[in-house]
């Protein structure tokens, strides 16, 4: 390869770390496949979004500053989540405005942060993926990925390269799944009802799986699908692209 490898810091996110480490390894595999040199800063935990959206600004600031410190030396910061990358790019500048002495590091991290599929397509120029999937999938656009990070065509472009996979769009892929962080617990009944609309939309496609790019949406949609007693599977886009859907 003529170019030096892209040096990437992977921000795994707290939900991937706790719930589905497989997604983190799938992201690693895809990044390495795209010729990147990947580091995973060791002490990383959470971007602070749960505190930020709950109005606990001080806790959010503490976690945001920690994240910036841990990633300031990375040339690229890649996040397998529209919501966590959106937190960094769209909200860190406002959240950390009162720490001018950390401004330079903040600006670097903010400018270098990308959602995984966006990075793979628009920075790494990835064209072939190892995944294979015999069946039909439908793609759910997560709110933050779509409206804060402009993630729309990138995952679809990559999924088109998965052998055997057919993408069938649902009627309203951009419609919120009803997760909303702690909203899903505080207003569980409303949240589940919104999720139900999403599940109806998914079911109407008769797809074998719904694919998405955010753990929050994933837990919510999968949780509702399980309660409905349906067999539609729910995958993170990295799992399907890397071909590691099952453990």
């Amino acid at each position: 390869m003529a170019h030096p490898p892209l040096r990437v810091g992977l921000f795994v996110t707290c939900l991937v770390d706790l719930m589905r480490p497989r997604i983190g390894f799938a992201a690693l595999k895809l990044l390495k496949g795209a010729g990147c040199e990947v580091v995973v800063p060791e002490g990383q935990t959470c971007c602070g979004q749960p505190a930020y959206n709950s109005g606990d600004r001080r806790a959010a600031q503490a976690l945001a500053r920690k994240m910036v410190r841990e990633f300031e030396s990375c040339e690229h910061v890649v996040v397998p989540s529209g919501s966590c990358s959106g937190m960094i790019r769209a909200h860190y500048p406002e959240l950390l405005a009162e720490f001018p002495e950390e401004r330079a590091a903040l600006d670097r991290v903010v400018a270098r942060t990308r959602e995984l599929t966006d990075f793979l397509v628009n920075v790494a120029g990835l064209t072939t993926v190892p995944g294979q999937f015999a069946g039909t999938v439908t793609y759910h656009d997560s709110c933050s990925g779509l409206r804060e990070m402009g993630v729309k065509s990138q995952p679809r472009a990559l999924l088109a390269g998965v052998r055997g996979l057919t993408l069938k769009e649902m009627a309203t892929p951009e419609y919120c799944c009803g997760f909303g962080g702690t909203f899903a617990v505080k207003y569980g009944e409303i949240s589940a009802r919104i999720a139900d609309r999403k599940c109806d939309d998914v079911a109407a496609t008769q797809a074998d799986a719904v694919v998405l790019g955010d753990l929050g949406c994933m837990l919510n949609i999968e949780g509702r699908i399980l309660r409905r007693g349906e067999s539609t599977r729910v995958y993170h886009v990295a799992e399907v692209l890397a071909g590691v859907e099952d453990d």
Partner: protein
Amino acid sequence: MTEAAQEAFSGTGGPGTARPQGGTFSGRAHDKLHDAKVQRAMRNFNLAAARSRAMAELPELEDIRTAAAAIRDTALADLDVWLERFETEATRRGVKVHWAETHADVNRIVAAIAREAGVRKVIKSKSMVSEESHLNAALEAEGLEVVETDLGEYIIQLAGETPSHIIAPAIHKTREDVADLFHQHHGTPRKTGIPELTMEARAVLRGHFLSGDMGISGGNFLVAETGSVVLVTNEGNGRMVSTMPRVHVAITGIEKVIPTLEDVACVLRVLTRSATGQSISNYVTLATGPKGAGDADGPEEMHVVLVDAGRSTVLGSDMREALRCIRCGACMNHCPVYQNIGGHAYGWVYPGPIGSVLTPSYIGLENAVDLPNAATLCNQCGVVCPVRIPLPDLMRKLREKQVEAGLRPRWERAGLRVWSWFAQRPALYALATRLAARVGRLLGGKRRAIGRLPGGGWTGERDFPAPQGRTFRELYARRPR
């Protein structure tokens, strides 16, 4: 708690009580989620599709949104100056301008106008501001007959309810509901055809238009340079209410002023498209002064009541952007929460995302603790807002104010504190998450799904997918190198 807020939340009925239901937000939402008629009505409701078709015809949409937001900001930046200009111009054209600092002032001023003019019957076109002060009840207490003439408002007046949407007030009603109401109140044979029902309402309302002494309207905009009140309507009742009775009273918030007619033309382009998907509404009325010498039509007296009732406080706060609102309803039309629970669950006059910002701002943060939290922050509202109000950001700011004011429940504050304490200590956090991953995996069992969690918020109608069992960080540390 203010008196208006008390009334709004008491839910006990009686004069001045605007709400059909009391209780908590979650309780009201629960009722609406289990009300089959409301659910059917909300499923049929799709102004969002109409908007998106109309916007597709406007290639310069984003530029017009930016211009409209700038026009509203210009007005708000020097609100006192534009309002005085409006007062001067309107007064010069024979309008009597009144300033209402509180909701009680609104009712007092309008009742006094009615008394002095010897009014017996009031006909109204849509005014959400008058809902804030429970004006109908106040006027009825003065012995006046009050008739709503907007079809939706008329329906809910018959039903003894309040609007559940700012431009489609009876959206929670089905055709069957309306058939029953008309049959019951008009004493006519029950009919269910929409054209027949509309013609029946038209025939009944015609008599009221001819016999009303005073017309009350809202005001979509106040034009500072001409002293005009702009009414944007579809049914034509606004024009009848503002021209046929002897007295016309327009009631509107002080934030509705716009500098020039040219500015109105710009904002109108996005207002009607955002609201109903129309390139222009059926009627756009500029009411500029009472009937003049040589005019064929018009009221003998015209009054404008400019309502503060909390707006000047919002103007001086970090919530100011909310005052840009031109009341199109697009935010609620696109809100996944509103679409499922309808407007009444929000508990006060303005539902949906804009209501979740305005209600706590107008009646007090402590009187609407749920509202800023009852949103997924999906930002569909912010994306469609024609004047670019950053609604999710404003809701988040209100959440921060709640935390600062100690208005959040103790379990929530404690939970966040414990979680953030661990998340700032990677070694302890690693231990805690390893444990949680293992426990969760065990609880998930063969199904790999947890059916019941403490509190039940998540698992009432959903399972919780079980974690894989090991954390990423521990697996990564053990990876083959």
